[in-house]
């Protein structure tokens, strides 16, 4: 316990030092009327050392996604920089191929979990800037279930469990099953040290820990693409892999339902349990939030019994902001580099000046249909709005372009179905001054359904009908019942009908390169207006003076 606390100490110190101006109950989105800055530059800097130097020299004001402990330590000593830290949705897991011996034996999987010194690995490799993970959803998730069976590090207890189940050890110290089958050498797939040094080191340590209880394991580093290919073909014994999950527990279904044990599916371990499947189906098609919570909790409990994978650690999100700016919003769930901060930030002293953020790689096509990288959406997320947003304190759904909504269940011709009705905000305008209305929302959903771009396929495939009873109401009838339809549908960025209806080919559309008098084809309702993208250099945006948030106050 003491060791665990020690491991978390640096992170706790940063968290305590972070300014938490308001608490969850005080949070009022309308208070974030803005943006206050007139010019925003997303400066493209790929090399982490160059990013750090740029911040230290005052060339940029905000640097997000810090992940090297040495950088965090260096910035912690810098009096001109404020660090913020938040629990993230990152999760790193050790997976087993449970289709074959020996990993088809649950007692072996549980003992493997217990043999891993998770706390020590986090302390040694991350300097405390990550937390040991012992659950299948990150603790920050609103659907996280803390009351599950855990297997804390105890190699002797791990051995005893195996011994009690009839396992023995041969003279070489290798485990032998109760049926007399020796555990063959096990390869643990991992990326190479040159591409992912920390992951490769963790794999070596895990292999060592497993060997200590009689499982002859060895790390097998390989090119990441080759590794993913082996996982996709189910040609492996063990693997380590990190995931970026979301606030919804979709990952539970995607990772552990037997229906996802198909080519392209993420049930790589091959877990197939009727009880678990039943709970996961209930989770996927939960009619309301209460049932969703219940099913998510049951699924996590079932998983901790079945142990298809071992949770190892979750990395914190850490960002740094220059103290020459004020107004950043930091909570235990979001770091300073978020949209709320960008709305409220202003110079700590002196006149307004441009704000510079580090963009860690190129945005690519900047095409809302095809772009799927975080770097594209770091830009487009400031341009396009969706109907709902996420509370930065609780991660709960809050109104955005929709000021209210209802989720109802009704009987349709082919069975029960969910009907979502959104009441849209009035007085919202697109960047070009055109009024935003329900027809834009309906057009967006219908267009995505017609084009079926892969990125949105799962969001729109269950939409049956979209209606607009009036200019500010949208009614979406789904094909079936699920509480998650709300998040999937209302989370889609709304596109301007008057611009997108002229697009001939959604696949090759490059809206950022369409030149108008002052605007490009990237027209949204969001807080920032796209101005210019110079590949390799920067993205320039200007504050949207027509932005609707807080106008009512």
């Amino acid at each position, binding site marked *: 316990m003491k060791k665990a606390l020690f491991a978390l100490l640096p992170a706790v110190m940063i968290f305590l030092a972070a300014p938490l101006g308001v608490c969850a109950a005080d949070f009022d989105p309308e208070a974030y009327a803005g943006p206050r800055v007139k010019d925003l530059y997303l400066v493209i800097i790929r090399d982490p050392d160059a990013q750090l130097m740029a911040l230290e020299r005052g060339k940029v004001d905000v640097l997000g996604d810090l992940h090297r402990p040495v950088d965090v330590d260096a910035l912690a000593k810098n009096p001109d920089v404020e660090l913020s830290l938040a629990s993230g949705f990152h999760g790193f897991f050790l997976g087993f191929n449970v289709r074959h011996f020996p990993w088809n034996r649950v007692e072996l999987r549980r003992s493997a979990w217990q043999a891993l010194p998770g706390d020590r690995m986090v302390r040694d490799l991350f300097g405390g800037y990550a937390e040991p993970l012992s659950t299948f959803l990150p603790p920050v998730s609103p659907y996280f279930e803390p009351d599950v069976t855990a297997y804390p590090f105890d190699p002797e207890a791990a051995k005893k469990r195996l011994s009690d189940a009839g396992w023995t050890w041969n003279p070489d110290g290798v485990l032998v099953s109760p049926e007399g089958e020796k555990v063959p050498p096990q390869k643990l797939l991992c990326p190479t040290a040159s591409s992912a040094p920390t992951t490769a080191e963790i794999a070596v340590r895990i292999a060592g820990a497993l060997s200590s209880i009689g499982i002859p394991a060895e790390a097998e580093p390989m090119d990441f*693409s080759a590794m993913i290919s082996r996982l996709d073909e189910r040609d492996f014994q063990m693997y380590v892999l990190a995931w970026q999950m979301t606030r919804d527990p979709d990952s539970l279904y995607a990772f552990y339902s037997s229906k996802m044990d198909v080519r*392209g*599916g993420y049930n790589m371990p091959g877990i197939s349990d009727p009880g678990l499947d039943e709970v996961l189906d209930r989770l996927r098609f939960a009619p309301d939030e209460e049932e969703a919570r219940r099913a998510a909790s049951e699924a996590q409990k079932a998983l901790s019994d079945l142990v298809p994978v071992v949770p190892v650690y979750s990395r914190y999100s850490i960002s740094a902001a220059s103290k020459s700016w004020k107004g950043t919003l930091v909570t235990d769930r979001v770091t300073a580099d978020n949209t709320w901060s960008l709305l409220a930030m202003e110079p700590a002293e002196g006149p307004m000046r441009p704000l510079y953020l580090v963009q860690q790689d190129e945005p690519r096509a900047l095409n809302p249909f095809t772009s799927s990288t975080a770097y594209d959406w770091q830009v487009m997320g400031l341009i396009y709005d969706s109907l709902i947003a996420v509370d930065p304190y609780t991660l709960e759904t809050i109104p955005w372009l929709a000021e209210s909504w209802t989720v109802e269940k009704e009987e349709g011709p082919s069975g029960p179905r969910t009907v979502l009705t959104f009441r849209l905000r009035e007085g919202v305008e697109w960047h070009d001054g055109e009024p935003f209305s329900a027809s834009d929302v309906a057009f967006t959903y219908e267009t995505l359904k017609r084009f079926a771009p892969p990125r949105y396929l799962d969001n729109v495939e269950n939409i049956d009908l979209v209606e607009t009873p009036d200019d500010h109401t949208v009614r979406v009838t789904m094909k079936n019942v699920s509480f998650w339809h709300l998040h999937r549908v209302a989370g889609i960025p709304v596109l301007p009908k008057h611009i997108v209806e002229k697009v001939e080919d959604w696949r090759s559309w490059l809206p950022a390169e369409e030149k108008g008098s002052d605007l490009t084809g990237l027209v949204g309702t969001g807080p920032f207006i796209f101005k210019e993208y110079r*590949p390799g250099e920067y993205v320039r945006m200007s504050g949207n003076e027509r932005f609707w948030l807080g106008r009512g106050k």
Partner: protein
Amino acid sequence: MKGYWARRTGSALLILGLVLVLNFMLFRMMPGDPVASIIDPNFSPEAKARLSQVYGLDKPLPVQFWRYVKSTLSFDFGISFLTGRPVMEELRSRLPNTVTLLGTSLLLSALLGTWLGMKAALRRGSFLEKCILWSGAVSFSFPSFFVQLTLLMAFAAALPVFPLRGTLSVPPPAGGMALLADYLWHMALPVFSLALLGFGGWALYVRNLMVKILGEDFILLARARGLPQRNIVMGHAFRTLLPTLLTIFLLSLPGIVSGAVITETVFSLHGVGRFLLEAVTGHDYPAAGASFFLLALLTVSCNLLSDLLYGVTDPRVRMERGGRR
């Protein structure tokens, strides 16, 4: 002579045809594919199947091959899987930086290396030769990321003489000349770093060749005839060395468009190297196929050109090709 050029052109076309086929086959034989490498719990198997359809990967291989040949030979190259932009656009936006960076540094390192190599050869056993040999070996052996990061920390962070990143200030200065000056200022450190890393190889190579040439009989004869040293060195020794140097230089030219991944990363330059690396590792078939085809085209062209220049710079080759021997 005509037969010789016809043969050379024929073999060049054959090589390009082979490259075309290998480009298609090799990338598809690599483990994984563009869709399988997506690791996102919100991307279902159905969405992946749709992506395969969008990329045209659901079609039979002969159909994919025919589309690929058509797009390559028409220099259209299609849309990059990774960036969603036309491959030609991607290359066009990156080539100016890459060619400036690698072309200038190749020229600088070749000129400096040749000059130093000749100096070392002409002053054998001197302190100068030792210095050149030592610095050449050091420059040749240091890993580029170490040298470049050190330069960046010294001249951009500790002593802020050069910019930290990119090819342009943010925001950029107004006016054409100011923009050009800003661009040159940004490229100075990356170009200098590559020239520093590259001159050693040239210096050692030229010095060794020159030492060998200076020991040849025709140089002894020239000295015996009482020719001035400058004539001996430039008119005889260097003239003999020139065809080899030209060949090396021309064969290095394709490298200036393939980019320098590490340099581009350290200095945050928008170049071809990183694009090429991502295309290969990310199974971006259109981008990787196009890049390697263009590289092959350039290599074959430079080879042809070097053959031609060999004839211009070395009379013996001209005579052999002319059939007078």
